[in-house]
């Protein structure tokens, strides 16, 4: 059973969801169809599992090899971000209507965009600023773990562009900056002949930060 600090707002934990993915069993399966937080958690865990498979396929540092702090960090952030969080107001056509997005839904969207980059997994995905005030300046902060061999700056630039596009479509937030930080580069255990030359950043090296920077204009989209 999960501890209170482990539990999502619905009472389930990432451990419950992980067990469900492994075994197909959970105490109240009907709950999963009713809980957006659990559904987002399951989606994130599936993407993490896919990245784990990529690591294994590439014969790089495997999750669980003793150097899996990056995975623990990701799971820790995921646990926080699955909560609904603050309510983000949306413009209503009719006075009196209250239309909102949850902070959790936007964080999950940011995470899914970041996770969709090949060889990358989102660590921390945060929205900084007063989300409850329409038009208030908001900064997006994303931390990434990237599998060794993938171009870091290109990953970060692509992520910034994709996030700017997706967030302008799916929210009414005034995004003034998107900061992307590569916090982990997952080191190969036995680099193959096709691996990048020595000297490329590896885990433990200073983490490059790309940003702060404003969201790219549409012209910057490749």
């Amino acid at each position, binding site marked *: 059973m999960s501890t209170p600090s482990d539990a999502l707002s619905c009472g389930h934990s990432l451990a419950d969801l992980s067990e469900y993915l492994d075994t197909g069993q959970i105490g109240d399966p009907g709950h999963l169809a*009713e*809980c957006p937080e659990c*559904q*987002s958690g399951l989606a994130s865990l599936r993407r993490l599992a896919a990245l784990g498979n990529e690591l294994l396929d590439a014969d790089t540092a495997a999750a669980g090899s003793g150097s899996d702090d990056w995975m623990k960090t990701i799971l820790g952030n995921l646990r926080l971000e699955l909560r609904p969080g603050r309510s983000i107001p949306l413009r209503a056509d009719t006075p009196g209507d209250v239309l*909102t997005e*949850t902070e959790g839904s936007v964080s*999950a969207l940011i995470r899914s*965009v970041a996770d*969709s980059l090949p060889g990358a997994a989102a660590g921390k995905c945060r929205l900084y600023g007063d989300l409850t005030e329409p038009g208030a300046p908001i900064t997006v902060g994303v931390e990434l773990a990237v599998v060794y061999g993938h171009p870091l700056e290109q990953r970060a630039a692509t992520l910034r562009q*994709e996030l700017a596009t997706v967030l302008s479509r799916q929210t009414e937030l005034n995004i003034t900056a998107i900061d992307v930080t590569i916090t982990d580069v997952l080191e190969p255990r036995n680099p193959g002949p096709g691996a990048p030359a020595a000297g490329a950043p590896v885990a433990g090296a200073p983490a490059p930060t790309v940003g702060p920077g404003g969201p790219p204009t549409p012209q910057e989209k490749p």
Partner: protein
Amino acid sequence: MTEPLSPGDGTHAPDAAALAAELQSVIEAVAGVTAVYPARPLWQTIAGAARSAVTGEARSRVDVASSDTGRPVTAVKVRIGVSGAHPAPHVARAVAAAVRQHLSPHPVTVQVGIVQIGSEEAADASGAQEM
């Protein structure tokens, strides 16, 4: 100003339950809506959930409220998931408009909370752009 919804317990009188089911169908038919979740999280509706478990009656996913018994619905609350292929703010407004149209001519306030945003578009964009 929106009238606060009366605290719900996830269950409704039979006519209200029928209306809630109707509204759920209306909302599900709005382009971009992928899911309708219980309007109140489980921890807020634990009594209703327990009652549903005993009676086998499904919990309503749309909260409807009226100011007095027998009066028309004055407020509707719903939580939805939306597709990444549609702009979420537009979907929220479309849901409010659909609810209002369904209950017309009675005035009603609508609360729409988006609790999940699909990432189909993001996935498509990433897949199309090999790096």
